[in-house]
């Protein structure tokens, strides 16, 4: 067990190192000049521009050699300092991300968990009820094949634009400041519903189809047939099949949860929802090295932590993994 965990942790640390290095490299490969873009927004006179340019290049430490920038980046990382955003100068990257992440979790966590739960159960039912299968299967394929932003646009059009049932942008109405009151909470939920629904529907389709296929596979497997030949009632066979069919779904859930930090870039852009996805788009457009880096760092962390947790969960739920550890 200790050896197994040790090995896993080592592999995760190595992956983290490589991923973060790539994360540092990629924004710097982008064409364009972030400082130039920052200054063009300020719109100063030419002589001031030159002076400010040198000032900012120094302030962001972009004048030192690349290897030094890389070392500085790691140093800062260990102190929890991800630098200062260029786009939202002079706010620290950490502050921006910390402000955005709750929106992602608030949006994605319910969407992922509820769609997973509902999808698994509806899929399992569809595996044995003919009429449900005939409706859920095509619907599921349709939903899961739908691009998130397309469904989001359709929802915005019908439920926002045409019927005015729901607001179409932002996390709350602009006249409010975030505070704790019933009206504000209702307003937040009102804004939250459409992006949530668009994510939920697409994910639901995928889960339901996956579960339906897995259950059918399990019900056709040898252990199910054996139990049936021994006259076991259906409820027991189904219980076994459901449990075994859940294993791949748990992996899928973990991968989805890993993407929780930035799993909804398209959706957040459509709804102008102020999560990490929305920030990434702006950071990229503004060549904001530090912000892009910071966002991706959190994505990397999310994916790795989720994978690690799932490795642990598998040890608990699947005896084959648990027993395989000693045989390594």
């Amino acid at each position, binding site marked *: 067990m200790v050896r197994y965990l040790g090995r896993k942790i080592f592999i995760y640390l190595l992956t983290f190192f490589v991923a973060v290095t790539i994360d540092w490299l990629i924004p710097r490969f982008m064409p364009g000049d972030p400082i130039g873009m920052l200054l063009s927004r300020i719109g100063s006179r030419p002589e001031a521009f030159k002076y400010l340019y040198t000032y900012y290049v120094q302030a962001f430490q972009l004048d030192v050699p690349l290897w030094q920038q890389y070392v500085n980046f790691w140093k800062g990382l260990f102190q929890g300092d991800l630098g200062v955003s260029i786009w939202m100068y002079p706010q620290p990257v950490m502050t921006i991300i910390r402000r955005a992440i709750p929106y992602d979790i608030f949006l994605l966590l319910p969407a992922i968990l509820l769609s997973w739960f509902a999808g698994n159960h509806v899929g399992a039912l569809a595996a044995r009820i003919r009429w449900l299968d005939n409706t859920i299967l095509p619907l599921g394929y349709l939903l899961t094949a739908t691009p998130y932003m397309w469904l989001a646009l359709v929802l915005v059009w019908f439920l926002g634009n045409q019927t005015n049932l729901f607001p179409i942008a932002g996390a709350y109405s602009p006249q409010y400041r975030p505070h704790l009151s019933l009206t504000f909470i209702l307003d937040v939920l009102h804004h939250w519903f459409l992006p949530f629904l668009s994510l939920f529907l697409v994910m639901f389709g995928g889960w339901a189809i996956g579960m339906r296929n897995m259950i059918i596979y399990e019900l056709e*497997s*040898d*252990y199910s*047939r*054996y*139990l*049936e*030949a*021994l*006259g*076991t*009632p259906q*409820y*027991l066979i189904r219980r*076994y099949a459901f*449990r*075994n069919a859940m*294993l791949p779904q748990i992996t899928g859930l973990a991968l989805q949860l890993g993407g929780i930090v930035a799993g909804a870039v398209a959706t957040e852009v459509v709804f102008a929802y102020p999560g990490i996805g929305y920030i990434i788009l702006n950071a990229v457009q503004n060549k904001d090295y530090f912000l892009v880096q910071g966002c991706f760092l959190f994505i990397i962390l999310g994916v790795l932590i989720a994978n690690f947790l799932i490795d642990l969960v598998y040890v608990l*739920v*699947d*005896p*084959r993994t648990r*027993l395989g550890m000693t045989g390594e």
Partner: protein
Amino acid sequence: MLQVENLTVYYKTIRGYVQALEQATFKIADGEIMGLAGESGCGKTTLGHSLIYLRPPMNYIGGRVVLDGQELPIWDMEKMREFRYRHVSLIPQYAMNALNPTRKIGRMIAELLESRGVNYNDVLPELKRRLDLVQLTHDVLKMYPIELSGGMKQRTVMVVSTLLNPSLLIADEITSALDVSTQKAVCEMLVEFRDRGFVKSTIIITHDISILYQIADSILVMYAGQLSEKAPSEIIFRDARHPYTRLLIGSLPKVGVRYREERLRGIPGSPPQLLNPPPGCRFRERCPVAFDRCVEVPPFLEISPGHFVACWRAY
């Protein structure tokens, strides 16, 4: 005592019925181990499974199955449920994969028994005795199937399948995936189970006739969905009357013959399509002694006590 009368089972396909089992009539006495032999696709598995687990694409066409004086509702999957395991049980071909991989074996057995209204703790002492009998430690109850070797899984399944002392046990190709020494052990266990009264009648489905010679009291040979011959094992090997049985026995390798010098004999030709089989005896295309009469189906007649043959040349 198992009586099968005119049992006919077809497979439903989009091109029509595949006539896999035609008018099977035979008896198995209490304590009899009957081997069911024939080449692939001859209907032996269809026959075996139809006695316990007749489900689509298998279609019940007609016939009766009477076990210990009680007719089995084999055409009704739900009504049959009650008879499975308690009266008719199965050791499946896939015994290696027959146990749920994510349940401990003891717990799986407990859940299986409880679902059939049997208290696990009542049966546990007997279960342990039987594990001893097949030389498995009691620890297998605390293990997952993955922790067992193939042979151990096979023996576990044998114990599980016979735990409720069924009247009829169907052992489907249970030696196919085993090495020779394990095959012998498994066969001896089946005899042991019979001798100890765990099961009354046993049907061993196999394409390996030489195994039957060692353990079966009688052998039923099938060809292309029809019964060819049933007789005590000695007679099948020494004095078979159906040309197919003779050729089948004749094509077995013999001890002391070098097959480098003498070619191993086979039966020329191949079995007919069962989708639209030719009328009459289905072996007649390959039969060396076929004649005009063979276009009629030969009845399965008892030509001497316990020796049944379906061949116009044999009566």
